[in-house]
């Protein structure tokens, strides 16, 4: 289907609704509603809180009267006027409910503002303006009488920002059941075993079992065999937040490795730490290459220098002899946040049509994507060519470092390009190694201006999308998979992205008390499969990180605009599915014919030149 109607577009195909098997009762055609609350989708554990008549100021269609339903999970709006417009097309489909629907998980809300005051005169100038984390704003106009706005504002604020009101995040209330347990997807021991670890040079250590070495690292770490636990403790004192260099990935053949960590605590005085220096040398020696250890500092050079003022820094030549240091020029979380803001400015509600490309350029978003991909390509190439092992860090090693290691691993290891492999990659490099999802996303927190918020994970998914565009057959998952991950990055329906690190998750018993996003995805796997996927082992994927090929992910960033939305499903994929169906149909027919013919064959009256002679041919061919 192409860009669907104005009405259906805001309720994206990618929202959770379409994935639930709840029957949604249609409004009757005349637009008169009986108990509409039945029509509101509800998850197990979801509780209805209130509903209210509002005017939804749709940026694409103008004001539409509707009823909004608020639960502890979502804001759901159904228009009351079914604006049956004038076209014959409508008659064609008028059996359908043509109501406009908005279905917004409260977790997506970043800010709620009152607009207009008691004295506001203009039509629809009094109400609420809701800023969402997923590139849109929602405006509702309310009646000035009574306390209708105050009530709605308060209810929304309480449930959109539960943490600021001592309420539980919905994931802890959600009672959904799936036949697959997504929490079982990632088992670190198994994943390291898949990589061939432990081996002669690398061992698994439980030194962080109770998070005593580093509270933002997972309990299980892979470190050089020759480094003792005591060594690790000493190294930890010299690395920001004790995030010591640990193995992320090892090349199955040449045994070069990707190691991740945080910056060394060099400081203004240029401090040195013999243990840290020796530790890096031990890492370097784990493979037989006599080359140097390559250090990729994700930051721009100046930022790395500036970090010395706050006690950080980078590995200097004179202290770390057998290393080579490169800066990858990737900017910090604040720059990325501002860049995404600019993207929103040019795409929502209206697309900056007249100077689209130069406007896009001025957001620098694609330039950042390019730098991240370029960095990851360098890491992957270094490791894959076997020239040397690689150590990656930024400042704390949980933002840019996660982007680089996970993207490089995606390029190097085809396993991560499967659905399950990708889940493991996210679970490992992002969740378990302490990307601060809670701070970066601000789950359930009202402080929308928090400087800790930043679209780092979104950037990573964007990079993955860019790669999937360049290699349409290399990934088992489709665009929808990536969008679903992003939707639930904010939705708070699942526990997957809650909290900043494993220790916090353990304290909150997240795996026991919440459902994993992978449960949803893995029990609907077919929906997320890329029909063109061709499994290839041992192929390193090098995307072309050039502005000539990077594109704005229109289907994601501009998905709320019905005029821009690209055809869904993708017509190429759709045609492929049709051909598959046709093939199966033909095969069935052939089998039927063969059966019929073989029945005839037993009939002696059949001539020898009957089509049944073809049968062996058919069988060999198919």
């Amino acid at each position, binding site marked *: 289907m192409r860009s669907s109607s*104005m009405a259906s577009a805001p309720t994206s195909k990618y929202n959770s609704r379409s994935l639930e098997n709840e029957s949604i009762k249609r409004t009757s055609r005349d637009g008169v509603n009986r108990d509409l609350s039945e029509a509101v989708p509800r998850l197990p554990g979801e509780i209805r809180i209130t509903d209210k008549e509002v005017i939804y100021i749709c940026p694409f269609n103008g004001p539409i009267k509707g009823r909004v339903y608020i639960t502890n999970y979502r804001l759901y709006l159904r228009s009351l006027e079914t604006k049956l417009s004038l076209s014959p097309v409508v008659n064609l489909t008028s059996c359908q409910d043509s109501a406009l629907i908005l279905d917004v998980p409260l977790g997506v809300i970043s800010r709620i503002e009152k607009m207009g005051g008691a004295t506001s005169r203009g039509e629809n100038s009094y109400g609420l303006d809701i800023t969402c984390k997923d590139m849109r704003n929602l405006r509702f106009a309310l009646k000035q009488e009574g306390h209708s706005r105050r009530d709605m504002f308060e209810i929304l604020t309480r449930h959109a920002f539960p943490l600021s009101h001592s309420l539980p995040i919905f994931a802890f209330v959600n009672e959904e059941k799936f036949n697959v347990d997504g929490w079982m997807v990632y088992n670190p021991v198994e994943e390291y075993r898949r990589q061939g670890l432990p081996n002669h040079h690398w061992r698994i250590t439980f030194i962080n079992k109770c998070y005593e070495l580093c509270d933002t690292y997972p309990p299980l770490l892979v470190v050089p065999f020759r480094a003792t636990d005591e060594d690790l403790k000493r190294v930890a004192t010299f690395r920001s937040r004790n995030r010591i260099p640990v193995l992320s990935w090892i090349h199955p053949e040449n045994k070069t490795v990707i190691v991740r960590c945080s910056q060394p605590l060099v400081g203004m005085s240029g401090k040195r730490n013999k243990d840290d220096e020796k530790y890096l040398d031990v890492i370097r020696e784990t493979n037989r290459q006599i080359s140097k250890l390559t250090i990729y500092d994700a930051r721009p050079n100046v930022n790395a220098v500036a970090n010395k003022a706050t006690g950080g820094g980078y590995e200097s030549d004179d202290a770390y002899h057998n290393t080579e240091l490169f800066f990858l020029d990737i900017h910090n979380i604040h720059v990325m946040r501002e860049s995404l803001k600019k993207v929103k400015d040019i795409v929502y509600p209206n697309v900056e049509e007249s100077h689209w490309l130069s406007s896009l350029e001025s957001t620098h978003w694609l330039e950042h994507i390019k730098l991240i991909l370029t960095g990851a390509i360098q890491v992957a190439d270094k490791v894959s060519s076997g020239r040397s092992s690689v150590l990656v860090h930024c400042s704390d090693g949980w933002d840019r470092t996660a982007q680089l290691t996970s993207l490089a691993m995606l390029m190097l290891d085809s396993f991560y390009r499967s659905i399950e492999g990708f889940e493991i990659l996210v679970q490992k490099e992002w969740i378990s190694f302490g990307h601060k999802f809670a701070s970066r996303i601000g789950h359930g927190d009202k402080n929308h201006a928090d400087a800790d918020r930043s679209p780092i994970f979104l950037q990573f998914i964007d990079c993955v999308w860019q790669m999937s565009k360049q*290699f*349409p057959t290399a990934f088992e998952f489709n665009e929808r998979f990536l969008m679903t991950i992003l939707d639930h990055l904010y939705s708070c329906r699942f526990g997957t992205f809650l909290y900043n690190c494993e220790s916090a998750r353990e304290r909150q018993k997240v795996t026991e008390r919440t459902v994993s996003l992978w449960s949803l995805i893995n029990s609907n796997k077919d929906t997320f499969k890329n029909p063109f996927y061709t499994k*290839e082992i041992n192929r390193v994927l090098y995307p072309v990180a050039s*502005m000539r090929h990077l594109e704005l992910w229109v289907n994601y960033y501009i998905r709320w605009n019905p005029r821009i939305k690209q055809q869904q499903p993708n*017509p190429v994929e759709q045609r492929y599915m049709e051909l598959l169906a046709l093939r199966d149909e033909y095969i069935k027919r052939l089998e039927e014919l063969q059966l019929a013919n073989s029945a005839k064959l037993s009939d002696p009256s059949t001539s020898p030149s009957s089509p049944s002679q073809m049968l062996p041919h058919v069988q060999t061919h198919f």
Partner: protein
Amino acid sequence: MFSLKPPRPTFRSYLLPPPQAEDAFDSEPKIKKLEPVLLPGEIVVNEVSFVRKCIATDTSQYDLWGKLICSNFKISFVTDDPMPLQKFRYRNLLLGEHDVPLTCIEQIVTVNDHKRKQKVLGPNQKLKFNPTELIIYCKDFRIVRFRFDESGPESAKKVCLAIAHYSQPTDLQLLFAFEYVGKKYHNSANTLNGIPTGGGGGAGGGSSQKTPLFETYSDWDREVKRTGASGWRVCSINEGYMISTCLPEYFVVPSSLADQDLKTFSHSFVGRRMPLWCWSHSNGSALVRTALIKDLLQQRKIDQRICNAITKSHPQRSDVYKSDLDKTLPSIQDIQAAFVKLKQLCVNEPFGETEERWLSSLEGTRWLEYVRAFLKHSAELVYTLESRRVSVVLQEEEGRDLSCVVASLVQVMLDPHFRTIPGFQSLVQKEWVMSGYQFLDRCNHLKRSEKESPLFLLFLDATWQLLEQHPAAFEFSETYLAVLGDSTRISLFGTFLFNSPHQRVKQSTEFAISKNIQLGDEKGLKFPSVWDWSLQFTAKDRTLFHNPLYVGRRTPCARSSAVKAFRRTKKNYSSTLRGMPASLRNGLLSDQESLPRRNSLILQVRPDPSPHAGGQDGGLEQFFREWLCKPADLHGVLLPHLSATHIKLWKLCYFRWVPEAQIDRGGFITAFHRLSLLADEVDVLSRTLRQHRAGPLEACYAELDQSRMYFRARGPHDTPETPEFLSSSFPFSPVGNLCRRSISGTPLSKFLSGAKIWLSTETLANED
């Protein structure tokens, strides 16, 4: 120095392989001595040995040694060295791996890096230094570089001068096609079947349909009948080009206008180009193109008469909508300027340096803006014809430039026939070749014209945008469009050689007389047609023209009743596609409904709730929105998405020679590959089924091993890896093309870095 009389050929010439043997020709003939493969009529003008062709961008280790030859058709580099690094080669039967047709040359730069001199070579110019290097800038965005370090300095110089001379001929009749056709005619004097057909060959693969050339009365008549146009007739007043030398001999006019009226009116039009019918909608509205009326006194009167006649030809007598293209669209000069900038940006600027400001630079070329403008304007006219049911008259000063683009795009959007290969080819014949698009001047084959403008490429680009947005609606692939564009730069096909059909007749008759060729009843020489694709590509290679996504009109595919009803109105467009036998279609119909289908999605469509529609613009807006709400009917009207986010750069066409932009084993082609395998599997199954049903007798006639697909399925559960040779440039390969990077660090870079690149003759011809 170079006489117009060509010297006697000193090399053996190889005749083109006869078409039936073309597949056997796949294995390359062994060339023992370094000799070029020559076409009939092709002669070697000059040659130099021990030439190095530069291959890689930053090393000379892959360079090839061989002989550089200038013939009257091409530059040929003949070598025994195998091409390094290249994984795939799309072979053009007319050209060797390293050959460049003379008409594809944009600029010739000679360099002497010892003396630090360079010169852009024009025709009849002298060269005061012996070149150490020759750089050929091609019109298709390639850059080829040769070095003469080990070759005889004088011979090198002579070859360079010969290339400059022969690539910039003084006269149309010096273009190679004349020599080639002359040879063919002479040869055919001895044989019976040697006369080239001139007619459009099939597209290869499954289609053996001939492309109507619209040179005859009957082609136009068939087109009138195909579109169901009543009130229109074929008129013959221009037979022998008695009225106008830039109109076809036959064209279609309102039935109510008598020949005598037309003759009278014609004097008032620029170039005597009176209104020509292009196409009729099944609702009766017609698309007409015309030049302006230059006679101001008569203007109103004639305009009125013409409009009345067009109205009369409309079954509902509806009004006429006039679209003044000169006022609404960029001029041909604007388009040329945009294209020059685009070329500069895509190939000539250093790759790395353009990266940072790539998007704004791309915007700055205005190319995409212009492509969008043509699509937008055409789509608006589609609305007028389709929804307002009003006839449209395209007006343009001469009526033979912008009109070609707009008339073609409107028809591609409205009529699914023009989205098939034979249909698209007939469209190019109808609206470009026969309507007097000045290919000679606009393509600048003689390199003298100030009139160069890439309108035809712009049309291909706009078609590509539609193909990109509606990938299942076209029978052809983007490779087909790119190859068609390339074919305009091979001076062999009569299709793209002339400014008008009359010019072909006139020039070739003159030529025939001068060469003693008996023309008999023929009107001028019959040049090979570009539509005879077998001249350029093997049957196997031609299958790359086919789009595996295409849903043919009769491709078995169930449709919802709603769409069926909609399609019924389009019934009178005859499809030229071969479908399945009726019996099989019927056999399948009953079960089709059970298959998941695109059109089943219609149930999910919600109407546009916006009621804001007022006036004509509102109607247009609403038309667009309503159309976008519906699932696209691939055999109905096709509209472009016109948002800036939807108009994209045609990467295959513009990046294919840029090594840095190549995605190895990636790009859309990898999905295309998978699709082809599946489409092929479905085809084989369908044929097998047909054989089963047809019984033994008819089975004999079934196409047993004919596939539409380049990539063939091997078995049912065969999921082969993505072939090594696929890349985003496929089927082309940037290997051997030099981009700017390679030049940096050489003495040449010092010359070029200061100069505006894509050297203009003015800036650099100041060497001596």
